[in-house]
Structure formats: structure tokens, C-alpha cells
């Protein structure tokens, strides 16, 4: 198979994976633990970023963020911009400082979730004066669950990026 075709097929698979994550994100009751549900879209963004170059990783993150914005009616572009930075940042870190490993994917997913939760809390709660005491109780389980969500995504993305459609 030609490189161009392999690349196209890989990104088609990524797109389907992201759509599946969007559905998992919005499915009522499924995989919800108490008040917390993993943020599947950030997990997908971070895991894909582990295997991709900064530019495609950033674009992929931007798409995930826009889906997150559209699905939940937040300001369009808010999470789009944030996920773009996270995707590109994760890819840069892995390229220059880390290695493509499962533990690294879990770690960067947890690190990527933190700014999303903090920004959401700052812009949608603190700025409007909705400061409930439950945020920190939700933050830790949410971080852990989102990192765990990277667990099933990692082998799928690895399979696509390294085994099925390698670009080299």
C-alpha cells in the first residue's frame, strides 16, 4: 500500500475512534462512577498525540475539543483551543523527552486532563461565582478515570500507528 493511502486509512480510523469516544462520552449512565465519568475525548487526544507529530496531534486535539464543545454547548473553540495546545504539547514532550510507552500515555493523559478540568472550573464556576466545595472531590477521581480510559485506547492507537499503517 502506498504511503499516502496508508496515511489516509489511519486518519479515517482515528476519526472513527474519536467519534466512538464522543458517543461514550455522552452515553447516559454507561461507565459513570458516582458523579464522575472519564473524559474519553481528552484520553483519545493524548494517546493519539503520543504516536503522532506535533502538527497532526494538535489538529486531532482541536477536533476532539470542538466535539467536546459542540456536544455540551460550551463556548465553541474554548476546548478546541485548549485540546490543540494539549495535543501538540504531548506530542512535543514524547518526541523530545519521553518514550512511546503505556505508562507514558497514562501519565500524559492525566497531565492533559488537569488543565481541562481547571480551565472549566475557572471559566464556568469561579468567574460566575458558582464555587461549590465538591470540585476537589471530583478532580482526583476524574483524573484517575480519564487516565484509565487511555488504557483501552493505547493498544488500538498503537496498532493503527505502528503495526497496520506505519509511515516509515
Amino acid at each position, binding site marked *: 500500500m502506498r504511503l499516502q493511502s496508508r496515511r489516509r486509512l489511519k486518519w479515517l480510523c482515528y476519526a472513527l475512534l474519536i*467519534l466512538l469516544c464522543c*458517543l461514550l462520552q*455522552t452515553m447516559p449512565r454507561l461507565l459513570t462512577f458516582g458523579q464522575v465519568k472519564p473524559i474519553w475525548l481528552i484520553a483519545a487526544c493524548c494517546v493519539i498525540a503520543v504516536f503522532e507529530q506535533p502538527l497532526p496531534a494538535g489538529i486531532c486535539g482541536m477536533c476532539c475539543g*470542538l466535539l467536546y464543545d459542540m*456536544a455540551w*454547548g460550551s463556548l465553541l*473553540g474554548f476546548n478546541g*483551543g485548549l485540546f490543540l495546545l494539549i495535543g501538540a504539547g504531548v506530542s512535543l514532550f514524547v518526541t523530545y523527552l519521553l518514550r512511546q510507552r503505556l505508562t507514558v500515555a497514562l501519565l500524559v493523559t492525566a497531565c492533559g486532563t488537569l488543565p481541562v478540568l481547571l480551565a472549566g472550573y475557572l471559566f464556568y464556576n469561579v468567574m460566575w461565582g*458558582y464555587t461549590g466545595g465538591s470540585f476537589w472531590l471530583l478532580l482526583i477521581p476524574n483524573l484517575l478515570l480519564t487516565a484509565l480510559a487511555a488504557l483501552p485506547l493505547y493498544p488500538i492507537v498503537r496498532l493503527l500507528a505502528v503495526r497496520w499503517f506505519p509511515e516509515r
Partner: protein
Amino acid sequence: MREFLRGRQARILAVLFLLMLGLMLLDASGEGYGSAPSRLLAAVTAPLQKATAALSDRWASFFSRYTDAAAAHEQAAALEAENDELRRQLIELDELRRQNEQYRQELAIADTTEGLTTLPAAVIARDANARFSAFEIDVGKKDGVEVGNLVITPSGVAGVVSAAYDRVARVTTVLSPEISIGVCISATGELGEVQGDPAAAAEGKTLVKLLPGDCAAEAGSLVVTAGVGGNYPRGLLLGTLETGVQAGENGVEGSARLIPAVDVNEIVNVSVVTGFTDSAKGGE
């Protein structure tokens, strides 16, 4: 790293980031640029969400048989005791109903819950991380749903439609601070307003505000829609007061915590009130 920062990729990423900032400004300006992609996404994902919601319900009900057995046992014992109490009340109620019917006929008063035009809907999307338990339903503008329609269940009011697309609509629940429903205390007739509060919402409760500071309503009092202004029908149950009314600093206004009649995190099916007759309206 320096190579990357000076390269073409970094510049494209910077442009895309600026594009996102621009999108945010356009969306915030309220000119509706953001709603077009949202409508498109809703149209694409709604059928898939409907299917996955059904799947998710089956999954949840299958496992809940085993995981909730102990809780169900306790609940059964509590319900049995409640059943005995309700049987006793039923006898009293029959007598009261007979009297009520007689008074209605004498005074020609209409039933407040009659005259509602409702549309059945299923919850198809819900994110546990969404603020104040907002959810999406499988009916929209093309089914006659409009922003501001009340969303109810047989137990009471669940929320209000906050965004309506062609085939789906988003519902803001009674836990949200963005909601504002005129209510009255059923026992005393005093008027107030239900508006969510983040601290109360964390415990699945909401607040009744703007009550008179000297309101005599006690814990357990029923709170129903007042129908004032004609936006919502009157007489629909919102919940019961958890506490008595606590006067504010000025002593003129009071507020109380409300236990919603509907557990908004658990509902699967709802009805959207798309219209109501004059008999269901309250005073202007």
C-alpha cells in the same frame, strides 16, 4: 525543540489557535455562528446516541440486578412500611377526594394538571461531568419543542429545554443556577422562585429563593409551579422543602433548600410540555 518552534508546524498551530480564539469570540458575540456546527453534529450523532442510549440502559439494568441487591433489600423493607402508611392514608384520601369533588362541583374549579399538551421523549445523552446534570432528549424543533418548554416526569418537574435543535434538545435541570421557575408553597400559597445553587446541586438539591422572610412553610412542605406570568403551567410538583424558610440578612426575603421530586441523574424517560390551556395557567 528550537527547530520546531521556528518551523512551519509551529506557525500553523499558532494560526489554528488564533482561529479557535476567533471562533470563541464569534460564538460569544451571540450571532449564532456556533450553533450551525452544533446543529450539524446533533443531526449526525442523534441516531447513534439513541441506539447507544438503549444499549447503555440494558447494560445498566443487567448489572444493577446484582450490584444493587443489598440496597434493594433495604429499600423493599422501607417501601413495605411506607405502603402500610399509604394504605392508611388512602382511606383518608378517599374521603377527602369525595369531599373535594363535591366542592369542585359547587365552586366550578378546574383540575390544574389537566390541559397540558405533552410530548414523550427519551434521554439519549448525558455526561456525568456536565454542569448540573444537564442531559439531551430525542425530540427537537421538528417535533414541536421550543426553548423554555418545561420537562416533566410522572414524579414532577425535571428541568427546562435550554437549546432545541431539529431532532434533539438539551435540558437544563432544576439543579442549575441558570434556571428560574416561579413556584408557590402548596400549603401556604406563598410565592418564590426555584433557582439552583452549586453547593446544593452537589448534594442533588436546589433552592427556593425570594420567599417572604416570615414564610411559615416547614420542612416537608410541597412546592409546585405557580404559573405566574403564564410561561409555565401551574400546579406541577417540583419537590419538598428540606428545611424551613431561613430569612436573609435584610429579613424581607427568605430561602429554603428543596429536595427535587425527580432524581435528575437517574431519569430515562420524560415528557416535554409543549403547550397548555388557559385552565392550566396561573395568574398573570
